[in-house]
């Protein structure tokens, strides 16, 4: 469980307690809230969603001693309220002004990087997962539906379960690719010649 670094262990424990007296259940709730908050902030266009989610948790934890006794309702409502406030306090930071520095501030990575990384990450997967994730995305439109049905039948699971299973593989792949691309970008910074990409 990732704890927001700005709060004390004591506040954090109090927060968990507020979520549920059973620490295990509280831990799960906490994770769901944190992931949910990140999803909300990303959906609202924030690129520092994790920081903002932690800010929400931080604020809630800090105010908990004052509100806990009088608060009525589900804690998530309070989390959401704080998240909304933070969204309203939105920063004026725009995406880096490409209009001003058009060509020269392009991102360091290229689509080739992602692809190269993906190939590396795919190799790290067990072969059945490797095959499954690629097979799953083989078709478009109507072909896709029948294809998924057939795949699910072959595996003896429901289509819905197949969808979730593939999503999880994809999720882990995506994380692996993101890490790999970041490493490549750092390498490119260290070697300025690598900045000359085909963008």
């Amino acid at each position, binding site marked *: 469980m990732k704890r927001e670094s700005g709060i004390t262990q004591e506040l954090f424990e109090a927060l968990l307690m507020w979520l549920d007296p059973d620490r295990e259940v509280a831990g799960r709730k906490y994770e769901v809230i944190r992931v949910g908050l990140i999803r909300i902030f990303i959906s609202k266009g924030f690129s520092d969603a994790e920081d903002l989610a932690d800010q929400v948790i931080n604020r809630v934890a800090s105010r908990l001693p004052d509100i806990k006794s009088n608060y009525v309702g589900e804690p998530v409502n309070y989390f959401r309220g704080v*998240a909304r406030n933070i969204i309203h306090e939105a920063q004026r930071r725009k995406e880096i002004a490409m209009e001003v520095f058009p060509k020269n*501030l392009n991102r360091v990575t290229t*689509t080739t990087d992602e*692809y190269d990384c993906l190939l590396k990450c*795919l190799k790290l997967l067990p072969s059945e997962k490797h095959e499954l994730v690629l097979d799953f995305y083989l078709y478009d439109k109507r072909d896709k539906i029948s294809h998924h049905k057939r795949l699910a039948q072959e595996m003896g699971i429901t289509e819905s379960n197949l969808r979730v299973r593939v999503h999880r593989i994809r999720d882990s792949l995506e994380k692996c690719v993101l890490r790999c691309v970041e490493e490549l970008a750092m390498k490119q910074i260290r070697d300025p010649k690598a900045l000359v990409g085909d963008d």
Partner: protein
Amino acid sequence: MIAIVQEDQDKLRKYLLGQLIEEHEEKVELRLLTNADYSEEFGIVENELIDQYVGGTLPAAEREQFEQYFLKATERRDKLAFATAMSKATQVHASGKRGVMHPALIERHHGERRFFTSVYLKAAAIIITALGVGLGAWLLIARRSGEEQALADLRAAYKKQRLIEPRVTKLDYAPLATTRGQGESEVDETLLRRAELQLLKNLDEHPGSNAHHALGRFYLAGRQVDKAIKHLEIAVKQDPDSAQIRSDLGAALLEMGKAELAAQEVGKSAEYFAKSLVEINKALELNESLLEALYNRAILRQHMILTQQAEDDWRKYLEKDSSSRWADEVRLNLQRLEEQRQKGSHNKEYLNQEFLNAYQIKDEGRAWRALSRSRIRTGNFIVEGLLDSYLELVTHGRNAEAEIQLQMLLYAAEIEKREIEDRFTLDLVQFYRGTTANDWQVLAQARSLMKLANEHYNKSEFEQAANAYTQAASLFEIKGDVCEALFAKSWIGYCNLRIPNTQQSLSIFEHLSRVSKAKGYKSLDARALHALSDTQTSLSQFSKAVDYAARSLKLSEEIQDDEQVLRCLQQLVYTNLELGKHQKSLGFGFRALYLSRDLSPAPNLVWPFYSDIALNFYNLGFTTVALDFQKETLRLAIESKMPLLRSRSYARLGLIYEKLQNYDEAIKNGSLALEEAQHITGEHSRLNSVANSSLQLGHVYRQTGDLNRAIAYYNQAIQHYERLNFHNYLYEAHKGRLLAFIGLGDDAAATEELDVALKLFEQYRLAILEESNRNSFFDAGQNIYDIATDFAYTRMGDPRKAFEYTEISRARSLLDLIQADGSVITEESEPDIKHNSVSHPLTLSDIQQQLPDQAQILQYSVLDNKLIIWVISKDKVESKVQEISDDELDRKILEYLRLILKDPGNSRAPEKNAARELYAILISPVEVLLDGQKQICIIPDKFLNYLPYSALISPTTGKYFLEVHQFILSASSNIFLSCSDAARRKAVNGAETLLSVGNPSFDHGQFPTLPDLPSAGSEAVEVAAVYNSMPLIGSAAKEKLIKEEMEEANVIHLASHYVVDNRSPMLSGLLLAKEASDSGLLREADGVLQAAEVYKMRMPQTRLVVLSACQTGIERSYRGEGAVGIARPFIKAGVPVVIASLWPVDSDATAEMMIRFHRYRKQEGLATVAALRRAQLDLLGNSEIRHQRPSVWASFVAIGGLAEF
């Protein structure tokens, strides 16, 4: 586990696309925070959405929302990149199953369930079945290399139909598809899919020029031009000597040009065509027998209206291939070109007959079509022909026949009156109806004189032509023929323009325009307005020239006079070319060529378009393309039989050869130009052309290093231009001679020449009045000041003089606005500023004298190969030089900015290293000269305008520049003194009044992606509290009220969004609360305080303006004028100090810094610059790491002058 139903998925999808109402949003968000399965489902739907986008299956409405809303966060864009990679991997994976093909087919025979496991297998089976080919044949194919196989598929897919006009290498002939989007496609999609998969796999396994070329070829054939260009450009980089790759890239660029043309982006289209021609020419240089390239060049030249050259290419093609089906298409193209020429050659006869036929059956529509197309420069040839016949018949007593001619004339005149409300022909006919035998002979004589004059004019014998026109005009006037007298006078005006007797010409056309308007002679008015534009061009009054041309163009379009439209376009081509607006000029040029294609006008009418298009391409660096156009120009000149045009054409051809470093051809053409010029019989035209040819020869000899001969030619050009009083070219000749003197090391002559050239160049400030035109013109011409600065500094060892040269090039328009004001004009599509007069900057001695004791100037000059740094104090002028090219410096600055603006979390070492390196270049050389007790005014140059000086780090002490010095930015030393002076005048004691605005309720409908700014609201409240004032927040922050209060307040603090408009910085603005609906380009109360509105304001009371928003300091930077952004109009309005930002800022940190700034300023009594510095140092020393980053605190800078407050 809670079941997720379809409805949930639909809601999530809508949530992700920002399409849910708030109530439903809340429900989704609460579920996200409570239910892990729902949260996971969210991720799945998110991925599905992205996959649909990547696969191109997202509906159009959702696609837009996806791009504008969904993709806002970086994480989403990362996901998109991942999904794109996944898609590619999946495709490769699918094609990788090729290896199991054979067993699969066997499985089919055994009736196994898992038959078609991939698209590839399905496709292969279809093909085999369809072609009736057995397994053996398939295996034979399978042994081929992947690329060959894909090529075979591609050929087969496009066997019946091709989608693009040019030829693609290695593809066979197929007829061009004539329907787009509709009709039955004859392209085999299955084969294409298989080919693409194979080519992607090839690229993955063997990335190289061949793989990129093959994929580029595939996309090109399928008219996916963007993708094709991307792959073909990579292929060219990797294998620059492949004629085939270059030919295909040329074909792709040609298709891109056609697409831009279809979107009415004529200028952009011209640039793509030029790029295409460059590639195809290279292909043919590498392999002159490459049929695809030859074919494509012919097509391209047809599109570029280089008709003769297209014909030559077609013929060459037939020499190499006369029997293929491609050759049949070539013949068809040649036939079409021939038909077009034939159509043009009997145009006049055809139109006369058309009118006659229409008259006989009284078909007015048909008659008007013939009449409207028969207007040429010497009049309407149908009307002229009828008048000639009438006079001929009536003078020979054939009255009945003459009456028929008169009836036809009346018919024509009435139609003209009805169609375009032009009375000219009607008045003319009515005049002739009233004539008697006494008049006819004189009128016939006058008309003969007109014809004679026209002949003289066509031979550039303008003096003789003017005499004949004058005699004709007198005879017409004697007989009371007002119409023809006016027409003759218009020709006298043209002759005066060419002689040149410009003032005389000006007065004739001004009179003509007035009379034409009064009498309802629209065609004549359009002619006069066009001529006025031409006259103003000769006087280098480009603003007026553009204005007259635009008015004439509008009128010419209204009266459906295509030839006159062409002439107006010519003016617009030329003036935009002169102003350095090449794409715009090309747009007008090609528009004219496309129009002329249907008109088949006289060669001398289209000659200027080719000539100016050539010069535009030349200036844009497409020299070989310029050469093609100039060759066409010469052909037209020869066809026109006008020595003037021939001379001009040779001269410009010489110029182009010079740039191509083909000096033999350059000298040859320059000499031919001079020779042709001697044949011009009109004296003034002759002198003009001799001067022009001499000028070109001067340039060529200077480039070859024969400087003495160059000077001799420049002397000749200058002598003639002085006699002709042609300022435009005189400047160019002096500049050329200056460079020759510098090359020779004749410093005394160079010094003298420099003064003359600069004086001439400075005259343009008086002639170019619009801010936008000035900015582009002086940006392009800045190098004369750089040459002067370098010469004085390096050769003459005179840093004071060098400083003065650099200073007179800086921010002159802003100085003009401060000293002489200007008016905001909104006639065009974008608002602009019209300058009223030109100010005179102070000399260095004056600057030193007026420099406040507490200030020191640190001024930069970025030259081609060096950087000069000046430190100016009241009693000293010191300077240092850094040997660094402008390109190298630009690169370092950009890299530093990139590092500064990177997302937090990365190591800051690269950023700090870059800051140290720039400090070493920009500050270290003069560090000992900087007085720590004084306020430094930094005057940046060129790209240095974007630099946050405060964040530079001393390599010796490790301290930021901000930690040691306090400074302000200014656009020039003169502007600094002007602002300092304003500050002195406004430095009165007593309480300051404040206008504090924050988080205005701006129009979310207009700016849906921008959030409210609560922290800007609290910032405004806190700032107001410091001054015991009331803030304007939310809906109270109305634009009209704010504008009123701005004129009264001492201090203005505006905390809001700033929205940059890419069309023009005049349209960029700060968002405020909307007051009422308003119309017009400059909406006064629409809730956007645009720069154009601020330019109109005066702020007599205002000492300080704080623009607490994103990127308010600089939007664009011009060489010469410097930074242009919303801070600039406040300086113009008389505000001595403006605080603005260089890049988008963090709202919370900004709020914190701004509150501290005002507190330091007001409560601790620090002056503005010192207070800002303290506030920034506070952030730098903040315990929160993110606040310590320069991206957070270094964005805000003080701009203006030295102020005690």
